[in-house]
């Protein structure tokens, strides 16, 4: 390898510049204290992990190392923010699968309309029918609850929406529900009642959940369907609200979709509502996975922000109110049923809830639970992680 004297004297400035930038980024990132949690991203950041034989051979350590470096890079939040501003300046509304509508509603729609494909035959045959049979084995009633999808609700705000697809969606959904009914599964479809009240504040703009009021109307629909299917029983009726309030929590309420948008300049107009029905039972016992718990029924703690509306995610809660004249209910679902559970405590003597994310992941665990609890009504809203 020859290097001429003349070339040795000349410095390749551009390489020096490149190496200099890289080393500056590297050293600044190394000197900076590692960030443990990012409120901007709503997640724990990757910490440094020393390699061991297994993690190296499996390749896992290398991924962790890359993630660690990117999570802890100097100026990370600023770079994300600049990127968002540039994309917005270029006219993009969709960033990382989130579309910002004109009214600041954020939608998880890339382009095509969401398809109502959840209640397919495999799900019905492998999940719903075994649960229905378990419920029927002791004379209980089984319901499948379909909560109005937020993306459909806001479809007309979507800048690239196609009008006819909403009707297509409804038609497909109606067909789904008819199929279920044909297989002996009762369904609770919240479309009608949600549309009736569509001028109210039913869904957050910045978050993928419905509001407390959205949950309330869904719950009313559930009661309607139960009453209609049990004309010989005392009708269930939810009372007037005793107290209803709303507030913006302390700090920023980063709705889940705002975090994804990566835009700290997003003007968040959402607020949280909570409510208490009249004559809400004040004597009760609460159990978490069978163990007594002293947690309140409604968490009126304004610092919990997100958890307040949803009332928290728990794997298996039972609330007993010692009113034997009232029926019992088991609600299986994820965060959206959390709010329904709070309301169900008013109408039902026993309220059981299962969140599949924190429960056993096999059908037998559910059928066994149903047979043991013997609730009058079993309602499944979401259980899709189960194989």
């Amino acid at each position, binding site marked *: *390898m*020859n*290097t*001429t004297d003349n*070339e040795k004297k*000349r*410095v*390749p*400035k*551009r*390489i020096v*510049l*490149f*190496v200099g*930038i*890289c*080393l500056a*980024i*590297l050293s600044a990132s190394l000197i900076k204290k590692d960030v443990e949690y990012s409120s*901007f*991203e*709503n*997640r724990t950041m990757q910490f440094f992990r020393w390699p061991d034989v297994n993690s*190296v*051979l499996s*390749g896992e350590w*290398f*991924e962790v*190392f*890359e*993630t660690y*470096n*990117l*999570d802890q*890079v100097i100026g990370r939040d600023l*770079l*994300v923010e600049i*990127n968002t501003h540039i994309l917005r300046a*270029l*006219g*993009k*509304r969709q960033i990382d699968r989130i579309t910002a509508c004109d009214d600041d509603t954020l939608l*998880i729609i890339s*382009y*095509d309309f969401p398809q109502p494909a959840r209640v397919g035959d495999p799900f019905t045959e492998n999940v719903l029918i075994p649960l229905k049979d378990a419920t029927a084995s002791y004379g209980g009633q089984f319901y499948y609850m379909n*909560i109005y999808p937020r993306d459909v609700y806001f479809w007309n705000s979507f*800048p*690239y929406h*196609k009008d006819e697809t909403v009707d297509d969606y409804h038609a497909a959904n109606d067909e789904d529900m008819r199929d279920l009914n044909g297989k002996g599964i009762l369904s609770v479809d919240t479309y009608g009642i949600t549309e009736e009240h569509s001028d109210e504040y039913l869904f957050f703009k910045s978050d*993928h*959940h419905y509001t407390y009021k959205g949950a309330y109307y869904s719950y009313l629909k559930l009661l309607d369907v139960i009453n209609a299917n049990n004309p010989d029983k005392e009708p269930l009726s939810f009372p007037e609200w005793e107290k209803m309030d709303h507030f913006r929590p302390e700090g920023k309420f980063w709705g*889940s*979709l705002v*975090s*994804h948008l*990566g835009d700290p300049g997003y003007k968040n107009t959402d607020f949280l509502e909570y409510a208490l029905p009249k004559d809400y039972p004040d004597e009760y016992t609460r159990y978490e996975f069978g163990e007594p718990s002293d947690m309140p029924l409604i968490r009126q703690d304004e610092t919990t922000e997100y958890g307040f509306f949803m009332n928290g995610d728990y794997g298996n809660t039972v609330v007993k109110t010692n009113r034997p004249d009232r029926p019992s209910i088991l609600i299986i679902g*994820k*965060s959206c049923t959390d709010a329904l559970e709070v309301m169900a405590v008013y109408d039902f003597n026993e309220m059981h809830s299962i969140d599949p994310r924190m429960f056993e992941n096999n059908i037998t665990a559910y059928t066994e639970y149903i047979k043991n609890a013997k609730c009058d009504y079993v309602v499944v*809203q*979401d259980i899709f992680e189960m194989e």
Partner: protein
Amino acid sequence: MLFSSYTFIIIFLPLLIIAYYIIPEKLRNALLLAASLAFYAWGGPSYLLVMLGSILINYVSGLAVDGLSERPSAKRWAVILTVVLNLSLLGYYKYTDFFIENINWITGLDIPLRHIILPLGISFYTFQGMSYVFDISRGKGKVLKNPLRLALYISFFPQLIAGPIVRYETIAPQLEHRNVDTAVLNDAIFRFVRGLTKKVLLANMIGEYAGICFAEGAGSLTLVSSWAGAIAYTLQIYFDFSGYSDMAIGLGAIFGFSFPENFDHPYCAQSITEFWRRWHISLGTWFRDYVYIPLGGNRKGKLRQFLNIIVVWFLTGFWHGASWNFVIWGLYYALILVLEKSVILKYKEKIPVFFRHIYTIILIVIGFVIFNSPSLSFSSSYISRMFDLTYGRSTWASELIHIFREYGVVILAGCIFSTPVADRILSLIKEKTSASSYEVIKSVIMTVLFLACFMRLVVSSYNPFIYFRF
């Protein structure tokens, strides 16, 4: 390790450059070899042994072929054995499940699939290894007695994962002797950043839309979205692959190696024949020199030439992946090339340039739909949707607005930068400014592009916790 990763750009590359130019020249090959092995082992060290096995096969084969140079028949058998060994290694890792699937399909058997993980870059380094033995056999390069030097040729990290496929005769002298020129070094880092820009700013961003279209399922696509998705993929694959080649060529030059060009603005071609002279040039010349010409090329009559074209393109397709889609893709080009050579090119001059471009681009876009489809049925549905003048007609306008608004800028940038416009702008600046100003401008461009790429790299890891389902 990927070129577009933090570990490579911010840690590996700058430290290697510093180390390379600090240590004595006689240790530089050893450093590059160590770095290349570390580069390959990073992320999945178990497959390092496969590559080392490939190096060993070709090292021993090279010595054998060289030793048998006076005995042509024995040498020929040694070359055949080398090909069999190399292709067996490639076949085992890349094609085992493909063959099992087809045997099961034909015979009705139920032989379980092996689910063998494909070692990174095996298609490339296998071809480089064979190139070494072929060139020794043809007397176009000296046999390497030092196994470390052969290991460096086969495993050199810039071209290890995705080419260009550097033939031994091209690089043999550089393994012993390299000139380091300041101007070349400055251009080399610019070339690397240009490649990084193509990959990170163009390919990845255009690829977002292509990804949506090809993930949707062809049934939901309309004429508008199917064409837009296919064009987006055509641009994505060009910027991805040519960006990688630019980075490889730039990196090679940083360490004194001169790699051949792999792309020459292929979408400016006016025929498919010309397109393949401009696209993945190193693979094309490899097949031309080591398969097409030994089969007789165009020297044994038209019919034999067409047969040779079909064989070469069958192999080219199969080299790209273990799926019938790739085979069909290869044969699709074989058919077009045969048609061009027998009919179309005769009338080429009579067809206006604009229509020649349109003809070529349409065939390329359709070709990449076949290439990127997960199955033959998907590609046929996708292509039929591209010509369906009725489906979803009422939504065409809103789809166009969506595409233009969300991806218009990057797709337009992709179309512009797939032509030589960037080079022409740089040439213009060079003409109009002094040499020192030109260098400063290039440095500024490089810095801005590099920081933009770095920003996108960081953003790609932006991963807020969210559960989308209720």
